[in-house]
């Protein structure tokens, strides 16, 4: 009887191992959408630097100026260089906003040298430097997504990612991701790396600036924690 019990136990071992394996797989695949957002927020809070490229959809305008695209370089806690491309009647121009050493500098066109903004002048410009701020930046904003749901996984630059859709509103984003001035909820889609939980791509859709016009923006993030070159304003 003991021998039969032992053989039965041994025979059950592969089945037990299989169940353990399935349980193990299930524990990494069973992240909920909210858990994905949470892990992404944690990872983002620990970022030291990041680069991003933004493409703006039609009708994306700030102070009457059409935004076409932008590239940004960010270094925690508060250094950044954001170069935008704008479209006017006569052609395209590239204003640039630089934050360095706690000061904000701006040039309306590339011919212009950087000019330091006073605190009052700085209020008129996007406060993007705190994007990597652990307490007030992108990280806590990501975690506050509502009605999150997982879509089918997708690859971004050959990296397998969770694809999460969530709703964000003024309370979640207006203070964290300037220059958004949301008046109601927008739909945000995030692509979060399965293995490293880094947010690689973000798409925002809705009334991003004005209540009467729906528009979109797509952000690609890359070069996480890599070397960053922020030009001197001099």
């Amino acid at each position, binding site marked *: 009887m003991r021998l039969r019990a032992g053989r039965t136990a041994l025979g059950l071992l592969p089945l037990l191992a299989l169940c353990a394996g399935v349980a193990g797989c299930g524990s990494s695949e069973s992240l909920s959408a909210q858990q994905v957002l949470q892990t992404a927020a944690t990872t983002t809070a620990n970022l030291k630097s990041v680069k991003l490229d933004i493409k703006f959809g039609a009708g994306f305008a700030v102070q009457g100026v059409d935004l076409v695209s932008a590239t940004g370089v960010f270094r925690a806690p508060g250094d950044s260089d954001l170069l935008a*491309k704008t479209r006017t009647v*006569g052609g*395209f*121009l590239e204003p640039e906003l630089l934050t360095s050493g706690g000061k904000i500098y701006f040039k*309306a*066109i*590339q*011919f*212009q040298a950087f000019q330091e903004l006073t605190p009052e*002048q700085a209020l008129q410009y996007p406060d993007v430097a705190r994007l990597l701020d652990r307490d007030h930046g992108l990280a806590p904003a990501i975690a506050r997504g509502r009605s999150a749901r997982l879509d089918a996984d997708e690859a971004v630059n050959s990296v397998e990612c969770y694809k999460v859709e969530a709703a964000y509103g003024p309370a979640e984003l207006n203070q964290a991701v300037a220059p958004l001035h949301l008046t109601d909820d927008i739909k945000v889609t995030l692509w979060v790396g399965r293995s490293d939980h880094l947010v690689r791509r973000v798409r925002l859709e809705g009334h991003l600036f004005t209540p009467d016009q729906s528009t979109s923006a797509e952000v690609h993030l890359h070069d996480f924690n890599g070397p960053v070159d922020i030009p001197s304003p001099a």
Partner: protein
Amino acid sequence: MSAGLFLAALDTYVVVTVLPRMMFDLALPLDRIEQATPIISGFLVGYIVTMPLTGALSDVYGRGRVYLASLAVFAVGSALTATAGLTTFPSESLAGLPWLVTGRVLQGLGGGALVPVALALAADLFPAGSRALPLGLVAAVQESGSVMGPLYGAAVAGAASGLGGWRAIFWINIPLTLACAVGLAMAARAGGSRPATSSATATVDWTAAGLLGAGLALLVLALYPDDPSRRAVGSLFIPLGLAAVVALVGYGWRQSREADPLIPPALLRNRTFIGANATNLLVGAVLIVALVDVPIVARGVFGLGEIDAALLLARFMVAIPVGAVAGGWLAGRIGYRWAATLGLAAAAVAFLRMSGWQPDELGRILLGLPDATATLALCGLGFGLVIAPVAAAILDRARDREHGLASSLVVLARSVGMLLGLSALAAFGIRRFYELFNRAPLPLGSDPAAAAAALQARFSSALLEEYHEIFLIAAGICLLAGAVALATLSGGGRRASTVAAA
């Protein structure tokens, strides 16, 4: 044969009047104007590199084949240029400016090749002793094509504004090159002329061509201002410049060791030959100042639109062939040196007047004529006066069998001058504009309209001041070229068809 050459020459500077629109369609920022300079310099590099090569190439493979192949390369380049920015192939970043510049380089390679082949073909078709006129006509076709290009470009782009605008300029080239190719084939068959035969003994020095091309391209890259806010030239100016020098010295060394070099040593020892080419090089450098900068001043300072800016440049362009005819006549009366010096003095006076232009210039009257019109016409006349005596001085020093080469060198020297002038203009001109623009901080108010108006006013005043300086320098270079012509040119004052090199 001449029609194809004329078509290619038209495209050399066809873009100067439509550059802002090209930049808009390719989403190139206006405040990064240096990014647009390869659109012009790319063509020039291709044009210059291919010229010393294709004469020998046609000796090996036959004039007709090389001419037709050159037309094909020009047509492919035209198609690439016309389609720049329309797709995202091979990638979004490559489909815009890199695609366009590749097209322009190919246009230059094909177009530049037509010059020596056309000259060699003219030499084949006409016996010694009666080649001067056909060679002169070929050179004249090339000259008139280049000077008409900017106005032609603005006119075609304006007429085809609903059909792609500036793209039509390049689309038109395709059926026209096909017509030129068919016409050449039919004319050769109907005329019963000697077919262009290839030579088994002629060789093509690809290494020399590669050295020349690499040297010029490296020089253009070295001078390219990648960050005008910090420096006038590229960040790799020293290594690229040194590499350019090495390549160009290598080319010269290789030529000196050739049994049959591009330029016969006897010509290189001739003071008039050297002086005429040096004069031509300097003329090229200031010619590009007028071609590129007059439309910029017209739009940025005078506030003119695309067509009106082209029409302002036309005052300069139309005067060039008038001056060329007058220069030929004058050279026959008073000699090459005095005719050339007179022309350069006239151009210097015109640039000096342009260095004092004001925003209300177009309303000023001088001796009953609009001042700007008179000044630009004087400038064009001056350049025209130089063309014939300098070309004739070079041809006089070459033997009959070297006339094709000498005619190529006339075009080559001026094209090299234009390339160097454009590169220097982009490098130092943009940097100088940056300095002038930022002499004082701009007001950063809360009113976007007021801020835009302040920006525009600062832009116009900095542009005007910059061009005052550039035109003053151009006047100085004209005087220098005049001094070189006065000191070195000899001959003329009587008809001279062939003079053995000293």
